[in-house]
């Protein structure tokens, strides 16, 4: 394509770090747009991106979170398209982005399927993943969509609860809209103004959901359930303590569902939880949530 420069938006910073890593490897320039609020709660990833040679631009407009980072990356792209590729980080935005990102992420369900058949000789009963825009979730679901026996569960960020304004649970509280180049479900007011959503997790703090998830919801193939900050933090702590795995706070939303669901199932049932990121980046936010300041 002849592009020499990569731009990306990022919420939690995982996609920004990935884009910066790829750019470093390919000797490309990289600019990452990140909501100013997210640059503060995900400072470790900001440092990593800079270390990898990327420029991180804090976005101060709107709520200073993922949605504003997407808007700003889109604005930047319209002004500089000849040498720049926009590497969108979720299964959202205008076509063909949701398809491109889904095809890459689909490696997750391909590997899950291969490995579970090898180990257990049967398909899982439930596959669950967290959903902001929904890239790791669609990747986890994709190769199971035709296997009707596999229940697919997306876990949205309910923030402080779906009955409060401080939530990002799009399927639960949003309605159909057109924004960021896609028709899907969005948290919005009666006049279509996009709602200032909230979640403890920067990666899920987005007022929309990828259009393919909206479709899977509409046809009843996947179920989307809200998980609060408190539930996610408890799951974050639980996995750390019991398995020695510190999961990303995003993934902890899906984990929370699995922890609740497992006791209802027979012992031979299989739940696969996608841990889409590691939680080092979240330690200081979770500590803060628990009233402890570890950043002196």
């Amino acid at each position, binding site marked *: 394509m002849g592009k020499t420069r990569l731009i990306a938006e990022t919420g939690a910073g995982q996609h920004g770090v990935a884009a910066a890593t790829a750019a470093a490897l390919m000797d490309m320039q990289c600019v990452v747009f990140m909501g100013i609020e997210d640059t503060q709660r995900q400072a470790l990833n900001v440092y990593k991106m800079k270390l990898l040679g990327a420029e991180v631009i804090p976005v101060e*407009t*709107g709520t200073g979170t993922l*949605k*504003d980072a997407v*808007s700003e990356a*889109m*604005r930047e792209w*319209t*002004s*500089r*398209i000849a040498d720049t590729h926009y590497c969108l980080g979720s299964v959202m935005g*205008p076509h063909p982005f949701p398809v491109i990102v889904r095809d890459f992420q689909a490696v997750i369900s391909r590997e899950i399927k291969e490995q579970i058949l090898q180990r257990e000789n049967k398909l899982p009963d439930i596959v669950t993943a967290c959903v902001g825009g929904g890239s790791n979730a669609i990747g986890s679901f994709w190769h199971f969509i035709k296997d009707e026996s596999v229940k697919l569960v997306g876990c949205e960020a309910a923030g402080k609860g779906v009955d409060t304004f401080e939530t990002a649970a799009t399927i639960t509280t949003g*309605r*159909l*809209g*057109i*924004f*960021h*180049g896609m028709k899907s479900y*969005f948290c*919005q007011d*009666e*006049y*279509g*103004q*996009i709602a200032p959503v909230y979640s403890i997790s920067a990666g899920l703090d987005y007022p929309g959901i990828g259009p393919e998830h909206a479709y899977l919801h509409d046809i009843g193939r996947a179920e989307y359930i809200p998980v609060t900050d408190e539930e996610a933090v408890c799951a974050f702590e639980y996995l750390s303590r019991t398995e020695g795995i510190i999961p990303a706070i995003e993934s902890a939303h899906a984990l929370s569902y699995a922890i609740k669901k497992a006791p209802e199932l027979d012992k031979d049932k299989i739940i696969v939880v996608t841990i889409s990121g590691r939680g080092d980046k979240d330690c200081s936010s979770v500590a803060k949530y628990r009233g402890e300041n570890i950043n002196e």
Partner: protein
Amino acid sequence: MSNIKNAFANNNKAFIAFITCGDPDLDTTKKIIYSMQNNGVDLIELGIPFSDPTAEGVVIQAANLRALTNGVTTDKIFNMVREIRNDIKIPLVFMTYANVIFSYGADKFIKTCSEIGIDGLIIPDLPFEEKEEFLPVCKKYNVDLISMIAPTSENRIAKIAKEAEGFIYIVSSLGVTGVRSEIKTDLNSIVNAIRKNNPDTPCAIGFGISTPEQAKTMAQIPGVNGVITGSAIIKIIAQHGTNAPDFVGEYVKSMKAALI
């Protein structure tokens, strides 16, 4: 066909002004509209504010935020237009984002436009390929859906131009709205490509135009019928607030003079 053609009648080089409704309040918006009409504006784009205006630069983003913070809504803007439409004779179009229309209900929104005398719609986040979302409703109520052509439109220019109605909004340069010191795009070849496919629909150039000199240069390009200014006016409003109507009037007069 709507009244938009009147703005360009008799080879008039049209001056088109954009303002954000409700910035700083709807009463001032009304006064600005009267002041602009009195000073020779040919068509007004009334912006309905949106929470996340992705096509706008910082100046108009801030205007959207001011208007929304002051509690402006689509219904209040409809009422404002109803109140002034008898006195305001020039064509009026709404400029807003797809979700504002979709969420209100396209039929209800566009029907209301038709009832209150709105002649057209500009929806910057509605690509040509997706226009069926609103076009049938626009046709039903005789409201023009205005197409935009940008420097990146390239081989899409022909099909966009062929189906254009109202006027064709030529985006002067890459990027979002906002004042630019110079415009380097090869606009001649864009206009030529448009005219090859559509000799009749008026063309107006916008994005980045703020001075009478720029307006004059743009309007002299063969096949161009008008210029559009937004951010420069919004800056005057941001500076003078409720006292802005007279200052905006003066500015409009100077821009229009450059086009005669």
